[in-house]
């Protein structure tokens, strides 16, 4: 079905079920319990999971397949965000034109930058993309926001004002981003015993788009084009002497991943109509690199996992402050309590980066293939045990 093999189809199916059931899965703790702060099933965070999932899926098409490490993909994210908000300002709050424009504009922008940066490979390519992204950031932050020509609204960020044209806006439509009248903020709350689950329109729209993006990524991975991209990573010399021009292949991958990033940027604006230059900063470019490597570069689902994990840390770990720690460790004798809290404190709250950094280091050192490799190892461990058990009873069965 859908032109996928059974294995890929079941992967897509699992991802579809997980994303559709995310409001339940991410809210395992009752609202009143002490653990409730670990719940991630609220619209704002769930939207981030899928949007950055899209960003990472696209980035992985470039980095995971061709090995070209771009340090400037946040530029495309930012361009997408600005494009979408401009559509809100000019046309109205329907998100479709904005999302469409963000894909188109970021694609064109990626084409321009790709043509220039792909003249080099390896570290030089990375530096060039970084330079371009920083230039884009500078443009957005100051140059393109002067009174005569204000494209980005500088430090304040681009947003919709009451005197914007919004040609297609009418009084019966929500005064916030919407899809044909369905507000992105519309949230249905469901209470079940001590639990509360939230079903948000913006989340479901983004989740469906992510599933489409994921599906397309699978098709690309399995296509002849995907094979050529892996050839680029493996041995460009052999590729060239086999009559293949590697440049248009890498450029196509660059543009596709730029469009994914632009789409993610557009969706960020669609769920929250404000686009700021900080989305283009190098830290944002670095973040998607971390997501991809953490999850497993070159694997299908890894980058999505990585994106989820990082966004979870950013939003959940950062909320744990000293008083929360006191409530956790209150059962300990006073001196010990203070001691434990002193040790733990640097790793939570504002120190969440520290924990993330440690995890990242551990993954890169012990699981170069990312979390996916970890999962595979655990899987093999289980299957290995099963196989050896089976081997004892029936020696004919071949171990996998």
């Amino acid at each position, binding site marked *: 079905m859908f032109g996928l093999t059974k294995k890929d189809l079941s992967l897509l199916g699992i991802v579809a079920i997980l994303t559709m059931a995310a409001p339940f899965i991410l809210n395992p703790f009752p609202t009143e319990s002490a653990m409730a702060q670990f719940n991630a099933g609220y619209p704002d965070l769930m939207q981030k999971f899928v949007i950055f999932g899209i960003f990472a899926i696209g980035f992985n098409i470039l980095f995971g397949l061709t090995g070209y490490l771009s340090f400037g993909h946040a530029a495309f994210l930012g361009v997408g965000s600005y494009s979408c908000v401009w559509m809100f300002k000019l046309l109205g709050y329907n998100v479709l034109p904005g999302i469409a424009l963000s894909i188109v504009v970021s694609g064109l922008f990626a084409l321009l930058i790709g043509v220039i940066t792909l003249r080099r490979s390896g570290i030089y390519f990375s530096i060039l993309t970084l330079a371009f992204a920083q230039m884009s950031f500078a443009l957005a932050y100051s140059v393109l926001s002067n009174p005569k020509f204000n494209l980005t609204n500088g430090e304040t960020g681009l947003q919709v004002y009451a005197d914007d044209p919004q040609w297609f806006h009418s009084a019966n439509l929500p005064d916030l981003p919407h899809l044909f009248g369905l507000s992105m903020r519309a949230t249905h709350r469901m209470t079940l015993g001590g639990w509360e689950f939230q079903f948000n329109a913006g989340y479901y729209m983004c989740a469906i788009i992510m599933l489409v993006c994921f599906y397309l990524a699978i098709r690309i991975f399995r296509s*002849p084009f*995907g094979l050529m991209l892996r050839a680029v990573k493996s*041995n460009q010399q*052999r590729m060239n002497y086999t009559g293949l*021009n590697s440049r248009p292949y890498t450029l196509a991958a660059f543009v596709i991943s730029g469009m994914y990033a632009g789409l993610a940027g557009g969706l960020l604006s669609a769920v929250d109509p404000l686009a700021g230059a900080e989305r283009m900063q190098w830290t944002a470019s670095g973040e998607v690199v971390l997501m991809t490597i953490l999850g497993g570069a070159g694997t299908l689902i890894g980058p999505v996992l990585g994106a989820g994990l990082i966004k979870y840390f950013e939003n959940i770990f950062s909320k744990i402050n000293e008083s929360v720690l006191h409530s956790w460790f209150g059962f300990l004798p006073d001196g010990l309590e203070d001691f434990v809290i002193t040790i733990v404190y640097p790793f939570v709250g504002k120190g969440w980066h520290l924990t993330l950094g440690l995890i990242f280091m551990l993954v890169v050192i012990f699981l170069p293939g990312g979390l996916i490799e970890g999962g595979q190892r655990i899987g093999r461990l289980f299957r290995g045990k099963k196989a050896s058990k089976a081997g004892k009873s029936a020696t004919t069965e071949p171990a996998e």
Partner: protein
Amino acid sequence: MGILEVKNVNKRFGGLQALGDVNLSVAENSCHAIIGPNGAGKSTLLNCLVGKLIPDTGSVMFDGQSVLGRKPYEINQMGISRVFQTPEIFGDLTVMENMMIACFAQRDGAFKMHAIGSMWKEKDIVEKAEHMLESMNLAEKRDMHTASMSRGDKRRMEIAMCLSQEPRLLLLDEPTAGMARADTNNTIDLLKKIKEERDITIAIIEHDMHVVFSLAERITVLAQGTPLVEDTPEKIKGHPKVREAYLGEAQVA
């Protein structure tokens, strides 16, 4: 006029004259061996043919067209395939995937945006790749990553990839180095068979005289960047200059 015409090619690396006034004519559908001691400039000459190096002076014509100034992939698409001295294959891809890349390059040209259909549904490519693997005795290694293969297998992999492109001129740089005797003989048989089946010109660099004398119709001896003699295998065997410059050395080594 041969299919490959090399005229007055010079190549310097700093103070080293790697190629000095090389003239070489390879007749269509022949097998031409280039032999010579280590450092004679044999690989450098091949590099000048496939666009890896540009000669300082001289011309290289393939089938009446100059190859100079063309990119490696363009030269390959003209019909020249090359096997390298150290195997150049896609190490982290499987044997079958390696083979399929070569088949795609031959069918679809230098670039084709074919991003949605599954590569395994390209029946003609899959069949051709499988057939090539059969004939190279690589079929049972189909799903192995090529990086973990033996050196001899890597070479056969590379030869198979080049052959699947159905080149008009095949350049082989020491194709049997690192192969077991049996594989060397298989390779000789395979190349002979290919030559009988279709029109192909082969230029081969080889230190193994058994291979050279089994395949070559003409032999050029290169020493210190300059062709010493060019003749038939029989004549070369007895040539005093050659014994002195090359064969003597090879027998000692």
